[in-house]
């Protein structure tokens, strides 16, 4: 898998909001070595769309998402946002775009400053951008947003983050990111730390907010059900590369990449039809410092051939809008259904 | 009591002698005072009546400072250094208890009539620790080296042709000639100038760090800086006691420099040392009344503690200002708080010494008069009282600062610094007023360097920068006579001169105590070859030649 290529870019559409091309992110690993966290990822996100990003831990999901908002700036590659090449923006110019691109973090508690009142946390964006010196407006805006995320502004605004439960804290995070009227919100595992009963609240909230404010989401999770539920398109990552990208229903019905199939097979549902595929994944995830040549998945793939070990597969469209980077994609005509218990 | 017999001089006359020492932890205050003379006699008798001396034993002695070098001509050889040297080296002459000069290492010692030429004849049969003979040549060499030394050179500054006027006449005879009368030379020979040091020491290219080699009762075996100086018995020592026993009695002496006075006292109390020297006022009562061991009898001659005024720089260059400060100083209060039971001093000479007068006319405490005088001449912006940063000295500083401020409305600043700076400031004249302790050498002529204008410029030993023609004249006269009566009269004149000009503000005579443990006998006892008793123990200096343990 783990391929490159610009095929998934939908250059024919004019509502593309973000275009990520050949994104590479490397970190120094000490001793002169380099961690290849993300290596040549290409995708785009249309306005109003939700792109889900799944993959094992360490596959580079967070790194990709953070590179999109230039925190930190990628090692190479381009990130294009509404007519601007973000990687070329410097200092103040970059800061000016920030309000358009917001982020929600995984840990609801540690992403809120424990020493600031909720209204301050939420109003921070307005303060930074000083939209209006009119305190009334600021307050009205904060109240509006708090209400929108389901918190009573009168009660919640005056409290401190630690007085809230995880779900409520995540609502505050959402409110904070919404206050500047962003176009895009990057959600890095926003529900992983939450209980299932609360997770649904946040997922619903995100959907509502998307509708209400016309948001575009980049949604990361390792829970495949969650990603399916919220995404329009889903991209599967493996060891810093994209394997497969497709509309979500299509992906879950016709997973073509062996890795995607293995992932789906690992979903803990009784009678999972793909369960056998998950067996291959028992091997270790190779080190991102010395990624395997050719297809990065070949070390764990039961279909792997010599070709896979030498040549890197490119993204190819196997069905309308369904792209796979694999020399041996599984293409069948009977869609799989993983029945929920 | 100043009976005639008291008039004696002590070993030290040389400049280094007393320079200070307000510096150490030792605050100079006297303890319960008894007149030195009386105590001396009774003490001496006690010792003499004790059982005969026994041989052997190791003595552990605490001294207040380490010596910087044994290269005496340039050394800052103060009380601790002198105590060690006394045990290692012998003097050419000694002072007896009647304050007269007697030959010691010398067979004979003869000045000419006007005290410009001296004939010194060396005793036969004496050898240095290294076995070489201590003959006339050695005497010549020693004196010459002294004359070349930075410090001792100032004592012998009036030699006719410098070191060349020290001439070896025959094997055992040396003559020394001076350009001016120098009647105190014999006394100098009883002090640092007169230690006979071996040529091998002088020849040592690294003699600044070398062990002393001389003729004394003990040989210097080890010198671990700041830790200890170890001496051991000189088996070939030339002297024996009245019963014919070979001197010294002790096998060895270990001198341990312990600068902190309270540590020295604690060490004595804990029984970890045998002998101590102490001039710390607050300890005197302890040694006199609580100490279970003995205390060696102090001699009459005592140093004086005073406020050293810099006569060479404003504001103390103005005699009226000096007088005003004296008027503003409540010396009785000082005595009460800082030197309880000590005798008030009105002049440089202690009671019982040559030149002492009870009331030389030193201004008495009169704040009104002082204030009035200051109103007249104006008050300086601030007065700087310099002191080392030792707690007890700070207390004294505080007291005077407060007196001058409340009595006479002066602004006094206490400038505190560490010890070494005190000396450098004093020699350089960079001060206004210091607490000081000096003099008490029992002979006005020996104070020459401290007061003569010849020593008052540049880096100078006349720290107070006293420039006074009358003083110069009087000092010169003390060098021309050996008559004790005459010297007494001259001393009194000097005393009055001081009172009149208020060159210094005299405070009190300084008491030393030499406590030693039970079982130690005859500390500071010394019998001269003539059979008379030597004058020892001045200003805490130890003589251990005839000390024994048992």
């Amino acid at each position, binding site marked *: 898998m783990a391929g490159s290529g610009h095929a998934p870019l939908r250059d024919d559409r004019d509502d593309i909001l973000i275009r990520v091309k050949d994104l590479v992110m490397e970190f120094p690993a000490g001793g002169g070595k380099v961690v290849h966290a993300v290596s040549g990822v290409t995708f785009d996100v249309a306005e109003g769309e939700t792109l889900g990003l799944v993959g094992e831990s360490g596959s580079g999901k967070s790194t990709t998402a953070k590179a999109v908002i230039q925190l930190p700036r990628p090692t190479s590659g381009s990130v294009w946002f509404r007519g601007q090449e973000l990687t070329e923006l410097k200092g103040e110019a970059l800061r000016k775009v920030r309000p358009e691109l917001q982020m929600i973090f995984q840990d609801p508690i540690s992403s809120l400053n424990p020493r600031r009142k909720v209204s301050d946390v939420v109003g921070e964006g307005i303060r930074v951008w000083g939209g209006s010196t009119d305190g009334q407006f600021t307050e009205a805006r904060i109240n509006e947003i708090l209400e929108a995320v389901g918190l009573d502004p009168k009660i919640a605004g005056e409290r401190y983050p630690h007085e809230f439960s995880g779900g409520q804290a995540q609502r505050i995070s959402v409110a904070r990111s919404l206050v500047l009227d962003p176009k895009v919100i990057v959600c890095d595992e926003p529900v992983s730390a939450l209980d299932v009963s609360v997770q649904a609240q946040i997922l619903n909230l995100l959907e509502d907010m998307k509708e209400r404010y016309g948001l575009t989401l980049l949604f990361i999770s390792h829970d495949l059900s969650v990603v399916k539920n919220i995404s329009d398109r889903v991209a599967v990552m493996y060891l810093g590369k994209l394997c497969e990208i497709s509309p979500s229903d299509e992906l879950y019905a016709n997973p073509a990449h062996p890795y995607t199939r293995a992932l789906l097979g690992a979903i803990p549902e009784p009678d999972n039809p793909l369960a056998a595929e998950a067996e291959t994944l028992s091997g270790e995830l190779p080190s991102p410092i010395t990624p395997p040549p050719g297809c990065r998945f070949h070390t764990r793939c039961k279909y792997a051939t010599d070709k896979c070990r030498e040549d890197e597969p490119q993204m190819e469209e196997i069905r309308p809008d369904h792209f796979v980077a694999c020399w041996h994609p599984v293409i069948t005509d009977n869609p799989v259904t993983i029945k929920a218990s | 009591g100043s009976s005639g017999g008291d008039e004696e001089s002590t070993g030290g006359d040389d400049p*280094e002698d007393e320079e200070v020492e307000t510096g150490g932890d030792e605050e100079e205050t006297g303890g319960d005072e008894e007149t030195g003379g009386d105590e001396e006699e009774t003490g001496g008798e006690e010792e003499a009546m004790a059982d005969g001396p026994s041989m052997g034993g190791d003595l552990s002695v605490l001294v207040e400072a380490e010596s910087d070098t044994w290269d005496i001509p340039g050394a*800052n050889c103060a009380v601790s250094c002198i105590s060690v040297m006394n045990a290692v080296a012998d003097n050419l002459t000694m002072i007896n208890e009647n304050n007269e000069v007697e030959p010691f290492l010398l067979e004979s010692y003869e000045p000419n009539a006007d005290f410009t030429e001296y004939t010194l004849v060396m005793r036969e049969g004496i050898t240095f620790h290294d076995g070489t003979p201590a003959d006339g040549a050695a005497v010549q060499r020693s004196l010459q080296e002294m004359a070349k030394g*930075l*410090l001792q050179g100032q004592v012998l500054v009036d030699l006719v042709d410098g070191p060349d006027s020290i001439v070896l006449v025959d094997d055992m005879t040396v003559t020394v000639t001076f350009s001016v009368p120098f009647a105190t030379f014999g006394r100098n020979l009883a002090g640092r100038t007169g230690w006979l040091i071996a040529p091998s020491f002088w020849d040592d290219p690294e003699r600044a760090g070398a062990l002393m080699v001389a003729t004394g009762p003990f040989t210097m075996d080890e010198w671990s800086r700041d830790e200890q100086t170890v001496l051991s018995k000189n088996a070939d020592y030339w002297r024996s006691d009245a019963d014919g026993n070979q001197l010294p009695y002790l096998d060895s002496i270990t001198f341990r420099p312990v600068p902190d006075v309270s540590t020295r006292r*604690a060490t004595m109390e804990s029984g970890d040392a045998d002998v101590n020297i102490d001039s710390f006022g607050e300890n005197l009562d302890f040694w006199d009344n609580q100490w279970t061991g003995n205390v060696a009898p102090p001699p009459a001659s005592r140093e004086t503690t005073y406020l050293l005024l810099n006569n060479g720089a404003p504001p103390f260059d103005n005699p009226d200002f000096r007088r005003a400060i004296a008027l503003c100083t409540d010396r009785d209060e000082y005595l009460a708080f800082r030197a309880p039971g000590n005798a008030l001093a009105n002049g440089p000479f202690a009671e019982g010494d040559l030149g002492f007068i009870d009331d030389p006319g030193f201004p008495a405490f009169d704040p009104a008069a002082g204030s009035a005088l200051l109103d007249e001449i104006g008050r300086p912006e601030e007065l700087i009282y310099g002191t080392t940063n030792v707690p007890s000295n700070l207390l004294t500083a505080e007291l005077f600062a407060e007196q001058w401020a409340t009595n006479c409305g002066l602004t006094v600043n206490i400038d505190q610094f560490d010890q070494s700076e005190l*000396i450098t400031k004093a020699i350089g004249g960079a001060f206004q007023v210091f607490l000081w302790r000096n003099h008490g050498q029992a002979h006005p002529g020996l104070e020459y360097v401290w007061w003569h204008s010849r020593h008052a410029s540049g*880096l100078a030993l006349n720290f107070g920068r006293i420039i006074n023609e009358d003083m110069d004249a009087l000092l010169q006269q003390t060098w021309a006579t050996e008559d004790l009566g005459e010297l007494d009269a001259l001393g009194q004149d000097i005393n009055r001169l001081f009172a009149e000009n208020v060159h210094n503000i005299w405070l009190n005579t300084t008491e030393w105590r030499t406590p030693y443990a039970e079982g130690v006998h005859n500390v500071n006892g010394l019998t001269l070859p003539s059979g008379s008793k030597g004058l020892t123990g001045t200003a805490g200096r130890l003589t251990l030649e005839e000390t024994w343990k048992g």
Partner: protein
Amino acid sequence: MVLALILIAFAILAIWVVRVAGWRFALQRLGGSSLIIVLVTFATTWLLRQVPGDPCLTALGTGANQEAVDLCRLERGLDKNVFAQYWSWARDVLSGDLGFAFYKNRETLSNVLQARGPRSFWLFVYGQTIALLISVPLGIWSAYQANRVPRKIPVWLLPIFLVATLALAITGGWTLSAIIVLAVLVPLAIFYGLRGGPAGDALVNTSAFALLSIPVFVIGETFRYIFAIERDWYDLIGYRSWGDGVGAHLSSVWLPALVLGLSVTPVYLRLLRSDMIQNLQQDFVAVAKAKGMSNRHILFRHVLRPSTLTLLTVAGLNIAQIINGAIVVEFIYDYDGMGSYLIAAVARREFFPIQTLVALVAALFVFANTLIDVVYTTVDPRVSAGDDK
């Protein structure tokens, strides 16, 4: 001799550092260390030149006259500017000439180091040993008690302790006020100590705080009074070397070492204790408990090692500061080590030896810290040398 031994020890340790951590790290550290040493010594040089007072005048004392002083200045290069002086000092030191410790008697610093170095060394070693001997067991005990249920001890034992303490105190002849204070505190301490649990921990912790709150010199002075004067358990006779016999040697050092040790004990104790408490809350401790391991096993085999990390770091960072305590202790016990020499040297304005010593201390500091970084990697395999903690 001593210097040579020290150098050999240094070399062996350096080789070990290189072996464990590699050349890269060693060179990197060498660079950083040299920078620190140069900075420190230059700053010292510069500062010393600002100090009023003249080393020549101080050395010559009352014997000074202008010519002698000028000659001395020339001989010591004091007439040149700071940079030239620094350079000449550095050249001398690098060429092995440490200079005169006492100008007047031309005693070299090497001599002084040889005579006094071992004293400070042993004082340091024994002080640290005592500190560790007290702080480690107490720290472990205390940390362990922090989360334990106190043992049941009948309250009526308290008056028994009290009476016993009083009886001991009276027969032992303590002074009245001490009896009153101790008669209350000692039984309480025994009681809570035996009882253990959070109260036992609080007892140790509070005692550590108390010790931290008393100036060293008060302890030193009091101990001198009690142990050297009141009872003759310590002889104020100064240092005795190993050559004078083990007994003499130890008995000449134990009290100053104890005082010095006590001054750092609370620091070590509290660090170890808080680290241990923290580590005792780690999951792996629960796992070990679930494995049925005994408490002793868990404490010593699982928790102790990772808990020494902070202790090590702090010990390393404080290595230069031990001298502070040593200065005070050496002063009170008339123990002629390097601490008291340093003070005397400053008083005498002996610039060059002070610079040399400051450089030595700085070198010791950086070396010890480098060493500790390497030890770190063996204590905690997760850390690799050179990581920023």
